[in-house]
Structure formats: structure tokens, C-alpha cells
């Protein structure tokens, strides 16, 4: 009776750890290099933004956004406001209704799950760098 109880207790911790790991890994099946932007979005009553690198790099080389448009290469280091975008900066250089959809299509970018922290997600081999 007590033996089986202590056995159960001894097994509970590693089992819980495994269950958590499995649960978390199943949770983040984001495509490699998906970026969540949520420094302001939810505070302002919008869903977080999901930026898919895979979609954009089919159409643009890294240098377009990271040299020409000025996005720093560290998730969370660019404070992008809707004012910037509407004025043609950052995403707004393309998302202007000419190269890509215009900023009034709010939900197409603000498509993230509520509550997500900002950062880089995804990858079935690694889960991104240790420091953003």
C-alpha cells in the first residue's frame, strides 16, 4: 500500500516532466523562424502579429528588410508602430496596397493567438537561439 504509493510518487515527477515536454512541443509547431510581435498589439486590443519568414523570403532577400528597411536582426529589437507602417516605414514599405496588402487588412497580420510573448518561434530541429 505505502510501497505502491511511494512508487507512484517517485514516478509522478518524471512523468509530469515528460508530459509537460510533450505538451509544450506539441504546442509550438510554428514554422521555422516565425516571429511573433506583441509588444503593443494586445495592449492596444489587437491579436499579436505573426510574421512568417518563410513566406517573405520566397519573395524578398533578407537584405531588403534587414538592410534597406532597417529591421534589426534580433526579434524584439524593433518597435514597429502602426504609425510607422502607415507612413511607409518598416512593413509599410511594401504593405501599402501596391506591393502587398494595405494596412487596413488588420487581421491578416494580427492573426496570432492571444497571450503569446514576442519572439522567434518554430523549428522542428531547433527552437531558436537562447538569447533574442
Amino acid at each position, binding site marked *: 500500500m505505502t510501497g505502491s504509493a511511494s512508487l507512484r510518487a517517485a514516478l509522478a515527477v518524471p512523468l509530469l516532466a515528460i508530459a509537460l515536454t510533450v505538451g509544450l512541443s506539441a504546442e509550438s509547431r510554428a514554422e521555422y523562424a516565425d516571429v511573433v510581435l506583441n509588444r503593443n498589439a494586445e495592449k492596444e486590443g489587437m491579436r499579436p502579429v505573426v510574421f512568417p519568414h518563410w513566406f517573405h523570403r520566397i519573395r*524578398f532577400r533578407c537584405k531588403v528588410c534587414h538592410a534597406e528597411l532597417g529591421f534589426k536582426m534580433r526579434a524584439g529589437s524593433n518597435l514597429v508602430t502602426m504609425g510607422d507602417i502607415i507612413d511607409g516605414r518598416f512593413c509599410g514599405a511594401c504593405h501599402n496596397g501596391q506591393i502587398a496588402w494595405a494596412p487596413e487588412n488588420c487581421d491578416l497580420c494580427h492573426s496570432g493567438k492571444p497571450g503569446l510573448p514576442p519572439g522567434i518561434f518554430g523549428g522542428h530541429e531547433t527552437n531558436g537561439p537562447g538569447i533574442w
Partner: protein
Amino acid sequence: MSLRRILTTLAVSLLSSATAWSGEWAKLSEDGVHDPRGPAIGLLQQPGDALSNLPGDGAGNQVHWIKALRSGVIRPRPNIDPAREDRRLDKDIYLDLYGSMPSVRFPHLAHTEWLDCTNCHDQLFLPKRGANGISMFLILQGQQCGVCHGAVAFPLTECSRCHSVRNHIAQRIVAELEAEEARKAAGGGSKEAGSADAPRGAPAKPPKDARGGAR
């Protein structure tokens, strides 16, 4: 009895989650970052629809992005402003010549096909031999090469893509490049950098300062 059931359930869920991760792209509604109840979920392109048509790979997006680019399957724009120069550099740098792993060949060409010089120089790397203290510890922490590799470029599980040249071969190439450099410095021929005198056996055509060897 119940314990056995729990273990079996766990084993099955482990296996099923492992298989779900390989060789397929998650649907946006199931990827854990998109809101499955959001209005965009039926409008956005699914990763599998776009990426399954590109040259395959075993890691990252499961796309070999350099092959996709060079084969012309994708034609990503190099600029928004057409006046902006799309700079390329075809020069290999050999690093980590005496380690326990094979040496690293860093190809500027593959990097400048995607990136601009200013993305790395001089914030991440000084363009000077031995000045950067490159370490796998820092890279694994998301510094240096790890700013991109492990986040957006091929992940750090792909050791042999960087550590790709046997040490004695890399040492020979670097020795030749350094001899070339020394000849130029001694002969005062620094003005003719990039002319016909390409070094033998070196895959790159180094201009005046061939760096390699040190970190």
C-alpha cells in the same frame, strides 16, 4: 495497471508527436502561434502549399534555400528601391583550422546572395583576421553566426555544413593565401588585386586581403 496505462499513453503520445514533426508542415490553424478562430486563418497561405514545391532539406523550413534561389525556383527581390545596389562578394574564409572538428569554410557568396555586407560588418564581425573570437558557445547562445543560424538560417544541428573542410586542406589553402598576400606586400603589387593572378587551389578569388586561418 493504471500506471501501465499512463506509460503506454505517454509513449504513444511521444511517438505521435515525433512523427508529426518530420517531413510535413503544420497547418496554420494547428501551429500554436496563429489563432485558429481568427478571421485570417482561411486566407493566409499554408506553409505546406508553398514550401513543398521548393528543393527539400532535412532541417529548418525543410527547404534548401540556396538551391531554391540558385535554381531560379524562387526569385526574391534584392531591393525595393531599384537604385539600391545588390552587392555580392565571392570570397571564402577558412576558420577553425586546428580544432577537433573539420575546418569551417565561410562562403561570402551564399551569404551576400541573401544579405547585405552591413548586416554582419562591422556589428557582428570585424572584417579583420583574428579579431572576432568566434565560439560555438556564443553561437549556440544566438550570438555571432547564431543570430541567424538557429533562428532563420539552417539550424545548429547541421554541423557539417559549416565544418566542411578537412583541417590539413584548409591549412594549405590559408597558407597559400597568406603567401600570396605576403608576395603582394613585398612586391608592392597591391594595386593589381583582383586581376589575373588568382591563387592556385583556392575556391575563392580573394582580392587584396585574403583572410582565413584565425578566428
